[in-house]
């Protein structure tokens, strides 16, 4: 089983990914190519959250 410390590190990286992708979606709101790809990235980030962050936080 992966260690708690490693999971916390991964959790931090995922949170950083969300922050960056949310920023990209907001900053690129006027450009469809940026906004729509950011939405797709965020959907993948959500899957990482379900797989890791939810467990770390519970």
């Amino acid at each position: 089983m992966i260690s708690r410390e490693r999971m916390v590190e991964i959790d931090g990286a995922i949170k950083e990914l969300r922050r960056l992708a949310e920023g990209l979606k907001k900053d690129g709101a006027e450009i469809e190519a940026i906004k729509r790809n950011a939405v797709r990235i965020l959907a993948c980030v959500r899957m990482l959250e379900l797989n890791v962050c939810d467990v770390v936080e519970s």
Partner: protein
Amino acid sequence: MTEDRRIYWNPITELLPKEKLRALQLKKFKRVLKWAYDKSPFYRRLYKDAGLEPGDIKSFEDIAKVPKIEKDMLREVQKREPFPYGDMLAVPIEEVTEFRQTSGTTGTPVYQADTWQDWEWWSECWSYILYAQGYRNTDRVFMPFGYNIFVAFWAGHYAAEKIGCEVVPGGVLDTQARILKMQELKCTAFMATPTYVLNMADVAKNKLGIDPRSIGIRRITCAGEPGASIPTTKKRMEEAWGCPVYDHVGATEIGAWAYECTSQPGGLHVNEAFFLVEIEDIETGEIIDEPGREGKMIITAFDREAKPCIRFDSKDVIRWADYQCECGRTFRVIDGGVIGRADDITKVKGVLLAPSAIEEVVRGIKELGDEFEVIVTKRGDVDEILLKVEIRPESEGRKDEVLAHLKDQLRLKTNLGYKIEVHSYGSLPRYEVKAKRFKDLRKKGA
């Protein structure tokens, strides 16, 4: 317990100790309940009418206080705005990217809205399934299904891609063309309903003169029907193709919620990180935790945003297993997969009859073909059951002996007598998706 982490799609969730898994489930249940209450007018009405607020759920035991939903409610809500989903929708309609619908087997189809995030979630659920069944990036996976309005194997396609498999879409090809393409490309896996897995083997052998075992398929994943969890049907498929056949269960309005792993323990793991499965006594409504006792499933999908699925009364009949799977996953196992449906198990001549019991008998007699049909009628006050079967050409000479054996087995396994009709081999309907082999005409007054 095995230590090889590579057998798990996500060891963080699949090996989670029981108590942590339960804590995760409670946290996620509260989250989806609040989401639905805040975002979906349907759920808000439902819970307000019951005097329930999300904050009322503090413990696992409190979950039973949350009103259940049923398929009829999903159909009814579709009459409301926004078209065509109704106000169960929990996101602005502009965020919906996917339309699918149920097959309508039990009535008016239910329309299912999904956002792109939901669609990612679908393929994530399926990734758990396929990885547990041994799919890897070395597989070339053939998809012999009609890509259309039904969920079917769509998410299986995307999950196989996510895992890194090479995916061959066999959409509009006919059965013979599909088999030839699988052979030409040396495909290693495919996904289909049990009915179609058997049908493809039959076409390969009898129309193309190809032994399906020679194609090189290493694994098959089934869905849509319970056949891959019915031992005699599973055996037929595995013998025909010369490889393991794995079951999984899912539904359009729920998601893909349980799967068989390569250990094949005789049941399916519930993905308890993504779903809460409760088993309810059909008569009393009591929640069943002990193994071996059958009840109907009440299910919650924790992470679906467009159309949340909270305490859905699926009518699927299941029971917890009394054994641990040797694969090491802590996700609980439902013994024998989905045993039947609460609304399919019907009384005939005063005896409870599950259609899967007839399938188990027919598929257990090797002289019979794969297809059969059951028709229940009423003559006066007496129920009658007609079973149509096919005898394989090579066994025609032993017809009387085979039918006597069939009648004995049916009596033994179902406690009922049947009128049996033998049809020429290949004449009963063949299906590509969900087969309709059980017809109860008493309800129509026939």
